[in-house]
C-alpha cells in the first residue's frame, strides 16, 4: 500500500476554525498551549480532541462516578481497566462490562450495533477471558414511528450477525419503546467472559524498551472521530456522519480472539488493550498512563488498508478488530508466529519509553509529542452546573381521582400484554444464537439468564435492567429502582449478586437539568448498591443523546451478574404444575405513577415512580433466595412493567410448554387498576407445593418480608378474582404475536 512521505503531507493550519471544529472551547485550547508550552500542530490537535472528548475522558461524569461503591469481597478489578472482574471461586473469575454504541447505531443500525458487540467482546478477551455470554439493552422510539422498524431490524441483525459469527451466545436482554427515543436509540451491549484468576491480563505498558506490537486487521479511514461524534448532540446533519461509523468483520475478530487467547497461554505478553474509541491513540496513551511510562510510535509501520493515510488519520482511525500489545523484549518473533498462524498482521510499531511522553513519528519525523498525563489523568474535569428543571414538579403531579378506571379490566390486561414493551421478545432473541458453547441453562425470556460454568457445579445469572420513564419522573428513585430490579431478577433465578456494570445514557451534560438528572441517578444507584451489597466494577457513560435540543429520558442501564453455587437449583418464572400454591412476596400499594398502564391506556407519563424501601427490598430478595437454596420453589417471577396482572399472566404463558391457568385473589383493597397494574416494587410471585408453604412462611417472617398465599395454579384460565377471567391460550397468543405483527 502506497505510503506518504513526511514531505507529502501538508499539515493543515491550526487556527480558530480548526480549533472550533475539533470541539475545543477557548479555555481548553489555552490549556493545551500551556501544557505543551507551544501551539500544537494539526495532528496533535486531533489527538487532544479525541482524548479530551467526553467519550474518552469522562470529563463531565468523573466527579459523580467517584460516589459509586466499587469494592466488595469478590471484586478483583474495579473500574478503570478494559472491564471489571469478580472472583467466582474454583480459581476462576468472571470479566464483564457493558458499553453503549448509541450514536453509530442510529446512523447505520446494522454496522453500528455489530461493531458495538465487536468492541465489547474485545474489551473482555483483552483481559485474557474467553467471552461466553452476551446481553443487550435496547431502546427505540415509538413502535409506530416510521423509522423504528428499520432501526430495530438493523440493530437486531447487526447484534446477531456479529455475536453469532463469534460463537458467543446472546442469552438475554431487554427492549423497550418510547417516543423519547425516536431520534436517539440506545444500543448497550454487555459481554461476560471467564478467565483463570492467575491468567488475567491488563492494559499496561510496562518495561522500558519492550516492543509495542500492533495485531489484527489493517487500518483504514473508517471511524475517524467516532469518539468525538459520540460526544456531540444530533441534528439534521447527523445523516452525513454515516462515514464515521465503522464496519465490522466478525470473522477477523474471531481469528483475533483465538490468536490472543493462544498468545496468552505463553509468557510473551506484558500488557494488551483493544483499539476501540480513538483507536491507536487511546490504547497507546492509556496503556502508558497505567504503566507509568511513555510510548514511542512509528506510524510508518502501521499496516494499511488504504493509500496515503496521514499521521492524523492513522492515529485517529477507529478501524475495528485491532489490538495493541506490549510484549517482552526478544519475544517479537514468537508473537508474530502465533498471529501468522491465524492469518493476522503482527507488526512492531513502537516501544515503551521512560520519558512519560506520547510521541509519534512518521517517516522519521516527529509529529506528536505530548505528555501522557495531559491526555489521560490530567485531561479536563468539569463540575458542571446542575439544576432541577422547573418542569419536574409538573410531571410529578398525578391525581389518581382524575384517572378513570376502565370498566373492562380483562380487556385492559389484554392491551397491556399486547404492548410491545410487555409482549414476548421472541422475535428478537430467536435471531441470536443462544445455545453455542453449550452452557445456556435459562435462555432469553426469563427474569435473568443462567449459564453454567463448565467443570464446576456453579452457574452465573445475568440480567440488564433500566427504566427511563421512572428516571425521568424522579432520577434519584429511578437510579435506585434500576439496581433493585436487577438484583431482584437475579434473586428470582436463585443467584446472589457479585457486581454490576452500567451504561449511563443521558442528554447533553452542558444542560444543568441533565447534569441534575445524572447526579441524582448516580446517588440513587449508590444508595441501592450499598443497601444491597453490590459493587460497581465497570461501566460507561454516554452523554449527548439528544436531537435538535431534546434529550432522551435519563436512562441508566444496569448489567448485573450473580452466582449460583449449584446451578441445578435454579428456578424459572413460569408455573409448573396444577395444584401448586401461588404466593406473593412483598406488598402492593395503591400507586400508578410512571406505569406502563398509565402510558398505554391513558397516554400519560406522569406521577412519581413506585415507592421503595431498600430494607424491604432486601428482605424480599433474601426470602426468595433462601427458599430457592432449600429447594422450596417451583417458580419465581419479578413483578415489574404492567404490575401484578401482567406478571401473573407471564407466569401462566411464558413457559416453553402449554400455558397453565391460575386462580388468585390478592387481599389488598384498592382500586382495581392499581391492584392489577400498579408497579409497586419489591414483589415476587412464587409458586410451590402446598406442603412447603409453612417453611416459606418461616423464612419470610424471619427476613421480615410480607407474604401472602394468593391462589393456586390450574385450569385453562387466569382468574384474578373478581377482576379478570381470561383463557390463557388467548393471552399467550396476544403476548407472543404482538411484536412480529407490528414489525411486518
Amino acid at each position, binding site marked *: 500500500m502506497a505510503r506518504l512521505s513526511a514531505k507529502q503531507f501538508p499539515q493543515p493550519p491550526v487556527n480558530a476554525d480548526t480549533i472550533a471544529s475539533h470541539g475545543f472551547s477557548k479555555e481548553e485550547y489555552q490549556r493545551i498551549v500551556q501544557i505543551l508550552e507551544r501551539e500544537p500542530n494539526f495532528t496533535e490537535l486531533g489527538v487532544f480532541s479525541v482524548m479530551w472528548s467526553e467519550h474518552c475522558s469522562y470529563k463531565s461524569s468523573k466527579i459523580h462516578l467517584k460516589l459509586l461503591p466499587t469494592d466488595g469481597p469478590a471484586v478483583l478489578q474495579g473500574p478503570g481497566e478494559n472491564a471489571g472482574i469478580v472472583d467466582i471461586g474454583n480459581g476462576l473469575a468472571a470479566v464483564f462490562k457493558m458499553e453503549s454504541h448509541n450514536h453509530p447505531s442510529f446512523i447505520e443500525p446494522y454496522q453500528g450495533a455489530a461493531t458495538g458487540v465487536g468492541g465489547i467482546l474485545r474489551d473482555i478477551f483483552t483481559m485474557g477471558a474467553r467471552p461466553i455470554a452476551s446481553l443487550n439493552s435496547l431502546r427505540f422510539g415509538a413502535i409506530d414511528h416510521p423509522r423504528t422498524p428499520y432501526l430495530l431490524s438493523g440493530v437486531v*441483525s447487526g447484534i*446477531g*450477525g456479529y455475536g*453469532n*459469527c*463469534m*460463537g458467543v451466545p446472546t442469552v438475554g436482554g431487554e427492549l423497550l419503546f418510547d417516543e423519547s427515543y425516536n431520534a436517539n436509540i440506545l444500543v448497550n451491549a454487555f459481554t461476560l467472559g471467564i478467565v483463570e484468576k492467575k491468567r488475567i491480563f491488563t492494559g499496561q505498558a510496562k518495561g522500558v524498551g519492550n516492543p509495542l506490537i500492533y495485531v489484527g486487521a489493517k487500518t483504514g479511514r473508517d471511524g475517524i472521530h467516532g469518539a468525538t461524534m459520540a460526544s456531540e448532540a444530533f441534528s439534521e446533519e447527523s445523516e452525513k456522519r454515516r462515514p464515521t461509523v465503522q464496519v465490522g*468483520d*466478525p*470473522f*477477523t475478530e*474471531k*481469528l483475533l480472539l483465538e490468536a490472543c487467547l493462544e498468545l496468552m497461554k505463553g509468557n510473551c505478553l506484558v500488557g494488551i488493550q483493544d483499539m476501540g474509541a480513538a483507536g491507536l491513540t487511546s490504547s497507546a496513551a492509556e496503556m502508558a498512563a497505567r504503566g507509568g511510562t511513555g510510548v514511542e510510535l512509528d506510524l510508518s509501520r502501521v499496516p494499511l488498508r488504504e493509500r496515503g493515510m496521514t499521521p492524523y488519520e492513522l492515529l485517529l482511525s477507529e478501524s475495528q478488530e485491532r489490538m495493541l500489545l506490549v510484549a517482552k523484549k526478544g519475544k517479537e518473533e514468537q508473537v508474530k508466529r502465533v498471529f501468522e498462524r*491465524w*492469518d493476522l498482521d503482527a507488526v512492531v510499531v513502537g516501544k515503551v519509553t521512560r520519558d512519560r511522553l506520547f510521541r509519534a513519528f512518521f517517516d522519521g519525523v516527529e509529529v506528536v509529542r505530548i505528555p501522557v498525563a495531559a491526555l489521560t489523568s490530567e485531561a479536563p474535569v468539569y463540575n458542571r452546573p446542575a439544576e432541577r428543571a422547573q418542569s419536574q414538579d409538573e410531571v410529578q403531579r398525578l391525581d389518581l381521582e382524575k384517572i378513570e378506571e376502565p370498566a373492562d379490566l380483562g380487556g385492559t390486561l389484554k392491551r397491556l400484554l399486547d404492548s410491545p414493551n410487555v409482549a414476548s421478545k421472541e422475535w428478537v*432473541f*430467536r*435471531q*441470536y*444464537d*443462544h*445455545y*453455542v*458453547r*453449550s*452452557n*445456556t*441453562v435459562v*435462555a432469553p425470556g426469563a427474569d435473568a439468564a443462567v449459564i*453454567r460454568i*463448565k467443570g464446576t457445579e456453579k452457574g452465573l445469572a445475568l440480567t440488564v435492567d433500566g427504566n427511563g420513564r421512572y428516571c425521568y419522573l424522579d432520577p434519584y428513585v429511578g437510579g435506585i429502582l434500576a439496581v433493585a430490579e436487577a438484583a431482584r431478577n437475579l434473586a428470582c433465578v436463585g443467584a446472589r449478586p457479585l457486581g454490576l456494570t452500567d451504561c449511563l445514557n443521558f442528554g447533553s451534560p452542558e444542560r444543568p437539568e441533565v447534569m441534575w438528572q445524572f447526579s441524582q441517578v448516580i446517588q440513587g444507584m449508590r444508595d441501592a448498591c450499598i443497601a444491597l451489597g453490590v459493587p460497581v466494577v465497570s461501566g460507561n457513560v454516554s452523554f449527548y443523546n439528544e436531537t435538535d435540543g431534546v434529550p432522551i429520558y435519563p436512562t441508566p442501564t444496569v448489567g448485573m451478574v450473580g452466582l449460583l453455587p449449584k*446451578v*441445578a437449583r435454579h428456578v424459572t418464572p413460569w408455573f409448573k404444575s396444577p395444584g401448586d400454591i401461588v404466593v406473593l412476596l412483598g406488598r402492593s400499594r395503591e400507586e400508578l405513577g410512571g406505569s406502563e398502564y398509565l402510558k398505554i391506556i391513558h397516554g400519560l407519563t406522569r406521577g412519581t415512580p413506585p415507592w421503595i424501601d431498600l430494607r424491604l427490598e432486601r428482605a424480599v430478595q433474601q426470602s426468595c433466595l433462601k427458599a430457592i437454596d432449600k429447594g422450596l420453589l417451583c417458580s419465581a417471577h419479578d413483578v415489574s412493567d404492567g404490575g401484578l396482572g401482567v406478571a401473573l399472566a407471564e407466569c401462566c404463558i411464558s413457559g*416453553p410448554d402449554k400455558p397453565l391457568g391460575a386462580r388468585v385473589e390478592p387481599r389488598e383493597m384498592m382500586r382495581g387498576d392499581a391492584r392489577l397494574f400498579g408497579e409497586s416494587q419489591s414483589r415476587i410471585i412464587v409458586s410451590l407445593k402446598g406442603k412447603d408453604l409453612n417453611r416459606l412462611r418461616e423464612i419470610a417472617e424471619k427476613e421480615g418480608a410480607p407474604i401472602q398465599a394468593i391462589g393456586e395454579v390450574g385450569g385453562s384460565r387466569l382468574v384474578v378474582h373478581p377482576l379478570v377471567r381470561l383463557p390463557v391460550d388467548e393471552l399467550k397468543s396476544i403476548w407472543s404475536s404482538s411484536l412480529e405483527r407490528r414489525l411486518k
Partner: protein
Amino acid sequence: MRWGVIVFPGSCDEQDVYDCLKNNLKQKERLAGRFDCIVLPGGFSYGDYLRCGAMARFSPIMQGVVEFAQKGGLVLGICNGFQILCEAGLLPGALTRNTTLQFICRQVFLRLEETDTPFTCAGKKGQLLKLPIKHGEGCYYADATTLERLHKNRQVLVRYVDARGRTTPVANPNGSLDHIAGVCNEGRNVFGLMPHPEDAGEKILGGEDGLKIFSSVIEACDKQGKSAWLD
C-alpha cells in the same frame, strides 16, 4: 472410539461437540491414529462471506476428509459442517437462505425417518428428537431428480415435524424442501444435518435427545469395528 473434530478458522461449535462427546457418552478407548468418525462442527468457516461452506471445501483438510469418506469412514456434518459437505459434493443438495430471511435460533422437533445408518441405528423409526437449530442458511434444496433419488435410496434421515410428529407448514422453520433437516450419502457413511445434537446432550441444557445421534455412531462402530485413516 476415536472421534476427530475439525476446526476451521471461524468454527464456533467445536468445543460443544468435543465436550458433549467427552462428558456425556460412554465409549471404549481405541488406538491412537485411527479415527472412527470425523465431525465437521457448526460455525462460520472463513466467515461464510462468499456462501456458507464454499471456502472451507477448498481448505487442505477437506481433501483428507473426502478420501476418508471414500474409504468408508464415517463423517458427520452439523450445521456449517452440513453446508461444507454439500459444497464438497459429499452430500447431495444445497442449503440456501431461510425463507424468513432471518437467522433462526430455537428448539425444533425432528422425526427419525431411517434407522439403517450408523448415525441413526440407536433410534426407532418415527421417533421424535428435540434439538436446537441456529442458522441463517438452512433451507434445504435439491432438484427434482436428486430429490427422487434421495427418496428412492431412503437418504432423508431426519425431517422437521411438530410436537406430534406431523410435517405441518409451521413445523418447517426454514422452508426446507420436503421438511428435510438432514440427509446421508448413498453409501450411508456421510450424514449432514442442520440441528445441533451437541447442544442437546444434557438435561440441564434442555434435553439429551442429541445423544441419540452420537450413541448410534458408537453402537455402529462397536458392532462393525469401522475405522479408517485420516491422512
